[in-house]
């Protein structure tokens, strides 16, 4: 049995609305989602986070790496600057369709990044993420 308080709030950030749609669908089938917010740009997401920081207790961010204007890594840098020590409120998963090893290596240099997930997300992948999140 899964307690409600263990369910997590999610933020999806991806410039491709089809992936937003798909990932929302996948999240809906999982057991650990309490709510989901989506943004097609990192800047919008940052703005929203800034305004609601006090209300955020713990949130899971599924973050695309390759986005115009602000890519996933730049988003993390900005988020750290914006929220300061509140960064530990955010559990970040990087999403990418890239097989580019440099991205994976770079992701490893960010302690804020919990894991690197290959696109597309599917229910199986998301369930194993859920299991991990439940234990947190």
């Amino acid at each position, binding site marked *: 049995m899964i307690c409600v308080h263990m369910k997590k709030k999610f933020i999806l950030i991806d410039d*491709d609305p*089809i*992936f937003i749609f*798909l990932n929302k*669908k996948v999240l809906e089938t999982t057991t650990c989602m309490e709510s989901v917010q989506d943004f097609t740009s990192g800047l919008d997401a940052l703005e929203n986070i800034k305004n609601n920081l006090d209300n955020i207790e713990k949130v899971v961010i599924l973050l695309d790496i*390759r986005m115009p204007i602000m890519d996933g890594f730049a988003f993390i840098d900005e988020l750290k600057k914006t929220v300061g020590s509140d960064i530990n409120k955010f559990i970040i998963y990087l999403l*990418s*369709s*890239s*097989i*580019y*090893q440099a991205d994976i290596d770079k992701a490893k240099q960010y302690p804020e990044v919990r894991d690197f997930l290959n*696109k*597309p*997300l*599917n229910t199986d992948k998301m369930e194993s993420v859920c299991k991990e999140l439940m234990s947190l």
Partner: protein
Amino acid sequence: MFDKLFPFHFVLDKAFNVVQIGSSLSKILPGSGNFDSCFLFKTPRLSVKHSFDALLSRPNQLFIIEIKGSELSLQGQFICNATQNLLFFCGSPWLTPETDLKKYNLSIADFALHSSVIENADYVSMSIDELNRGAELSEDYENQRLFFERLFDEIPVDMSIFDLDKRFRYLNRRAVKDDNLRKWMIGKTNSDYFILKNIDKEIGFRREVFMQNAIESDSLISFEDIHHKGTENEVVMLRSVSPFTAHDGNKYLLAYGLNISDIKKKAKQAEQKNVELEKLNHELNGVIYSITHDFRSPILAVKALVELMKKTVQLNARFVGFLNHINTSIDRLDDQIIDIYHFVKNSNSELGSAPVNLSELVSEIFAMVEHSVPYPIELKINIEEKAILYTDAYRIKIVLNNLISNAVKYSSNREGNAFVEFVAKVDETNCSFFVRDNGEGIPPHLQDKVFEIYFRANNKIAGTGLGLFICSEAIRKLGGTIELESIPGQGSIFSVNIPNR
């Protein structure tokens, strides 16, 4: 003493009478008398009109005087003893054939040491024959001197010799063409020259610093002089200064300069080209990144949408069939993109070296691909590791990925025992392994071709025709070899040998 210096001398009084004859000259000229009865001016021809005063007015004139009644001539000059009103002719035989010397019983002892007949003190005790050989030798020396002088002038290198005060002692013609300027420069410094020529004094000062360094470190120092820097006429000289000790023990600096403008220009062009190529390479990597990422992104979206459709909508079997075809096509496109990425990355990226855990890597790859066949398949793995394998982690992964996923794809479940076998031996210097499947094998006439680009031996199973090509290219980069053994109907063995480094 005077006679010792000039054994062929004679003295004239004001009346032009010969009043004294040197000891050696007396062997040729028995008596004395008036100048004209004894001698004849050959050069200059003073035979017409000459007098004591005429000779007196030519203190710096070289005379050649024939001794009358003989074939001999004397070469020398007149020196005046004003108090006694006497003229001393100081000279020695000129261009004297050996036979004439013998005729007058003249031996080496009859000559002063400074005489041109005697080139070296060692010859003093020589016979006339030896003396003549000495003359030949001196001619050889002169020829050699001229040869080397010419050589030094023509050698396509600026050459100069400095004393330890950094003053020119010698320059060849390549260094300074103008003969007068070259003479002027002897005893001058680099700075003097640059001031005279009114050119960039900095170059001159700089040279002197390098020369000082060469003196102090007692070693060869090289540097580059750049004239007309940044202009079309830019000249780059490679200069070296090196201390050297001459045969007489004196220390000098030997300097040479080589015009390397052309080499420099070419090097610069090559460098520019290299920068351009590197930029292009960098851009290409960016393009490849874009292709692999941006092309894959929508492909993966389609795949996910197809999956979603199959799960959320009740479809009839025909529709599911269509969706599966879409999936297969999309997978092929995705495989192509991934292969192209690896192909380019394999040819571009530098060779690394990292410890590789074969057992882990093989199991990991197998786990990823074992579900690509609809039947259970076993991985038989046997690794004998006497040493840790060090190789390029990226490329060994490409190789194993290709070979193992191929082995799974082409395996056979005809006897219900589909398997992939991986056997490896690793020691300090080498790693050999093979990947074996029990599939249908490859016909002998196609076996040579499987590593060729875009070659596909099988139409039934989807492939890009790039996998084994990339695999063999990666092995080549690792410095290894790959071989195929295959028996149709029984299976294939791919054997790989790579160095452990």
